């Protein structure tokens, strides 16, 4: 595999060399993410599973045995275990039925179940609701929750004060919420 760490790096890998690990993690994140998102079309969940897998790897690096495979194979094994755990977690849960709207209604009282987020129509609903927001609100929400930018950075990008970004985000969240409810109430 081209992406595998070189032999030299592998030694550093076992020793926990930060530079080797940085290289390794940065390269593995998109691959792991792809692996999870294929199974559950839920970006947040995929992020969470990636995060868990990477942490498992970091914490369990002492168990890595170079004689048994490459670090890449090893971390994918961890990822597979996390998929298994996630499947098991889901098996123990009541299924999600009924209207999406009833879940959106409670959007400020409890976390949306992953199963709801993964419904196909969910992305359609969210996109439609999102498209009706003011463009300023759209930009702010994307910058904050997709790009993960800080309020300061957003402020710099769109040329308003940091405080205004906070209130813009606050309004944007509530607008999106209203639009979501509007979208599902019809």
């Amino acid at each position: 595999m081209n992406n595998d760490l070189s032999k030299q790096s592998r030694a550093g890998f076992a020793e926990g060399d930060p530079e080797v690990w940085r290289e390794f993690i940065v390269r593995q994140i998109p691959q792991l993410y792809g692996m999870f998102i294929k199974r559950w079309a839920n970006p947040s969940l995929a992020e969470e599973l990636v995060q868990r897998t990477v942490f498992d790897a970091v914490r369990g690096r002492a168990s890595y045995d170079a004689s048994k495979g490459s670090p890449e194979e090893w971390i994918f094994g961890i990822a597979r275990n996390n998929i298994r755990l996630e499947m098991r977690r889901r098996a123990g849960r009541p299924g999600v039925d009924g209207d999406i709207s009833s879940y959106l209604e409670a959007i400020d009282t409890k976390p949306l179940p992953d199963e709801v987020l993964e419904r196909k129509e969910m992305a359609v609903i969210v996109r439609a609701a999102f498209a009706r927001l003011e463009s300023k609100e759209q930009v702010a929400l994307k910058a904050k929750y997709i790009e993960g930018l800080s309020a300061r950075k957003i402020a710099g990008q769109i040329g308003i004060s940091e405080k205004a970004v906070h209130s813009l985000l606050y309004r944007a969240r509530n607008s999106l919420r209203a639009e979501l409810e509007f979208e599902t109430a019809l």
Partner: protein
Amino acid sequence: MDSKENNLEKNISRLVKLTGDTDKPSKAFTDSLTEQALGELKKAEGDHKREEKGAKMKLNLKKTLAWAATIMIVCALGLGVLVSNTKRASKEIGKIAGLTDKPTSTPAATRLDPSGRAKIEYTEVGDKTAVVGHEAKSAEPSVTKAPDAPVARDVTANQLVPVSKDAATVEELGKAREISDLKVQTDMLQVSGQMPSAKDAFTAGKVDTRLGVLSGGEAGIRQKYQEEMMSMDMTGQAGTVGEARVVQERPMFVATPKPVEYRAGYPMAHGGVVPPNGEDADAMFFKNYGVNPFVDTEDDHLSTFATDVDTGSYTIVRRYLHDGHLPPEKAVRVEEFVNYFKYGYAAPQEDDFAVYAESSPWKFGAGRKNSFLLRLGLKAKQVSDENRKPAILTFVIDVSGSMKRENRLGLVKKSLRMLVEKLRPQDRIGIAVYGSRGRKVMDYKGLSEKAEILAAINSLCSSGSTYAEEGIRIGYEMAESAYKKGHINRVILCSDGVANVGQTGADQILKVIKKRAEKGITLSAIGFGMGNYNDVLMERLGDKGNGYYAYIDTIAEAKRIFEDNLTGALQVVARDVKVQIDFNPDVVRSYRLLGYENRDVPDDKFRDDKYDGGEMGAGHSTTALYELKLWPEKEGTVATSYVRYKDADTFAVSEFKSSIATADIKKSFDDSNTNFRLAATAAQFAEILRKSYWAKGAKLSDTLEHAKRLSTERSGHADIAELVDLISKTIQLTEKADVEPVDGEESEDIIYLQP
């Protein structure tokens, strides 16, 4: 901070991600995770060193001849059986591994491979040999009840002479560790250095085993393990003997007996896996819509909202206070407090609406200078009782068991009897009820059959569950069959808002209501009852139903709604009323709207006539208050208000505007008229009750002073006298006169800068 705002933010964060490119993680995520992971790498390194040091110290303490001898025997015995058992164990592991992954393609599986090897390390202690390390794979988590749990091991280090008898002991050791591990970790993957308790637990188990070998033989050992496992404290310090260095590995298979919750040690990428909070079935349902922030006019000079003529929040709070409790903050909606009072706006003679604007400086909250209050009053045209359109009223009455409480149904009946007295000959009434099932009680009857109407009302009694959906559906079916153009077609729902059969969520019901409202059948939601009252549902029903929402706590309130202004309650004169205020950025520095949080309309939807606004009945008025910060020494237009609405009958859209200038601003709060001060007082009261961030430092005693003054100026106004009473009650209930507000969402973000 408000957990609702947190939940909202987390969920919105997750939802927004759905709009993006989902194939790749964002750069921000990759970067932040990389940093976190490297931080963890360093941290784990540190922990690891500390542990090694600790282990050495313990080792020294325990380095005794007796120990060494014991250990030697144990190990020797263990190895013997180990060798003989290796094949069997390997097979078992292989079986399990085969269930899930092919070892060749799975590095992790390879690690815990079909040959299922675990490692035992040996080291020299003085001239004796001791077991110092053990590496095993845990396979089945079923605590203590997995006699078949495969344990694999392999002797890789300094070989000792196997003594067959005690090999079982070594197997037990493996199990013991599995069990202890599994107890600790439930589902999460254990890694070295992270779970000292598991390690210690194992160590303890092992030591006891050795003692057991010496003292009691195999049976004794087994029992000892069981006890040990049972008594082991997951978080505790079971381990006292530390010559073992345990290299833990990830368990390959973890069959968790209960739904898994993620361990707190893992930073969440989002908040989505916390189990939903179980809501108490008997809880009061209110919803926190947040508090509007100050908005810089430079960012957004438009403020848009749908009108609201509801008063439910005020009466609910009154009920709480009369019962001797402070209301929950989210039960307080400022606009409904303000709209509860009558401000004597003169009704327009020819137009549909009259707009009144007034402004003066005001003082509210600690240290806020340069604060002005702007009041906008909107008054709909009056329709006299005689000119009211004939009404076809369909009562849908909740007669479920919950309506028995506090004689809710009794109050409903009284209210209805009162209403019947106010009807005119051409009006007609039909009644449907719902309990366990919905049913029609009485077909439409006019006043000529008043006795029968009253008899039907009196015959109602409550029992059963609450099939609200069916009741509302039947009510609407009746209303549809009786529908007449040019009449007021109104469904009046009398309920505590609790639904527990059928579609218990609001949305199904709301959908039905919204569709019918477009046809002209509107809905008024009249709330009754406390204890398990659902304010959120009732308010939304009234809102979506293009009718209104009121809460009846006393017979006096029923009178106010059904007797004093029945025409206003029934005859809508304008639909989808929306208000947009355009603040002049040259004069106004920032503004905040008091209340109307759940009536917010996006600025660009103001002229979208499909976007729902508020409905206004004949003679209804609505008042909006803004707190303003002005630029110093600026003059000109302060704000221009636009009101857009549809004619109730023709649906023709009209829009008109009016404006207020700096010259219109009163010199001082005391110069403003009584009505202005009344609205301000009601708003202050609500703001303090709901612990708005902007009420920080405001004293309820000041508000009480305002109210008292109003009460003397307007003696004979029961509403104002009652307001004084309620504020006093609140002060008593608060112990201290000033309610210390909790910080709201915006508190940390928006700090108004004094000019």
